């Protein structure tokens, strides 16, 4: 499961639950919670 986290507001973009994978989002995608750009998102390493 691939998850990206918004560094500003901690919104989690979970690929499985969304219409497209994070990597397939358009460049003008904005965080649905705080509206910052895609560059603020970091890939979350899976918990082991």
């Amino acid at each position, binding site marked *: 499961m691939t998850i990206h986290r918004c560094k500003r507001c901690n919104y989690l973009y979970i690929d499985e639950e*969304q*219409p*497209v*994978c994070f990597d*397939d*989002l*358009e460049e*003008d*995608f*904005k965080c*649905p919670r705080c*509206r910052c750009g895609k560059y603020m998102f970091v890939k979350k390493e899976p918990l082991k």
Partner: protein
Amino acid sequence: MKIVIIGNNVAGTFTAQNIRNINQEVEIEIFTQESYPYYSRINLPELISNKKEIEDLIVFKDKWYKKNNIDLFLKHQATSIDTKSKIINFDNQEKKVEYDKLIMTLGSTPNIPPIKNALEMKNKGKGVFTLRSIKDAFEIRDFIKEKNVNNAIVIGGGLLGLELANQIKDSIHSTTVVEFFPRLLPRQLDEDCSLMLKDEIESRGINVVLNASTDEILGNGSVSGIRLKSGKEFDAEIVLIQAGIVPTTELAKQANIKTNRGIIVNKFLETSEKDVYAAGDCIEYNEQIWGIIPACMEQSKIVAASALNLKKKEYHGTMPKNTLKIVGVDLTSIGIIDPAKEESSAWNILKKADKKSYDKIVLKGNKLKGAILFGDTHAVSYVNKKMEQDVSREELLELLELYKYKCDGCGMIYDETKEEVLFKNLPDDWKCPNCGNPKKNFKKEKYK
């Protein structure tokens, strides 16, 4: 860009949400003929029994639409679409709405089987009803109250039919469910589990008639009963028909969009017209109609991506899956639950039938292909997680708490995976069939 969605059901509402999740700029408008925002249909029977109120059924309130910047227009029935000029007309003739992309989530209407007088008496309000909307629920509730109903018939022993019977039974002298198939919930349960459910339902005071095809609704003016094809008659002052769904397609047909039983879509949920998409109960994909919530949820993601021109995911059908309470009993039914007998060699079935619960796990080779979990929830998350994956038989036996019991006299093994009755449910005076050793001298062993 403006995306217009027609229909505020599961598919329509979650499509709007999915679009908004990945795009904050696009305009989203939802139009519906309903008078209420998105509400939970599965709880409609509880509206009839007054156990719930409208507010309890509404899933997303006004605040949600505001927060997501989605405009919801209630009481707007779309009457026609001009796909060339991209304009939707409404019953309010002055209202015209333009769209860049149109998503039809038109939903479905209750199926009325070809029963004499059924449609006529329903349309005239003479005691035949279907349950699909809040308005239907109130009409049924008021009819029961005002007409002094003593006997009710529910035609259709599916999920909604049974729940409906369960909710009305307390206010009515006698409630009878009439099912066309030889068992209840034929799509969700196998024969053994169906019998268990039937016992449970009958113990609550609901009569169940199986293998029954209704021929005619009886009554001069108002309903007085039904007659089956077998000739048998039942008295009733109200008849509730819950016999499946019919996809709503009129609006699509009128716009010359290709339809069959449902609106025909491809794997991106595009219809035959450019910039028009469809999802939910109204669609037909691969000659199949879905009509289940998990399918609506899955389609709402794909159609959201397609309408935003991001065709990254394809639709290939949805695995049948239900997790709910049926007459108060927890039930999960997922995937293949009753594999064809002729290919029995490939299938591997584990069953555990207790007094009030039933677990069945279906494997093909080592792969988990389906399950029925009735009256027992503790394997639900495991099954959901492991579907279509290889699982170990030992792990499953441990999960289901199935054991072997060894006789300390002769070493005979009572293997719960092979016997019909669980060891604990054997009578206290049961003895080892081999050496006559009493039940208490058997020792529990795990599978290794």
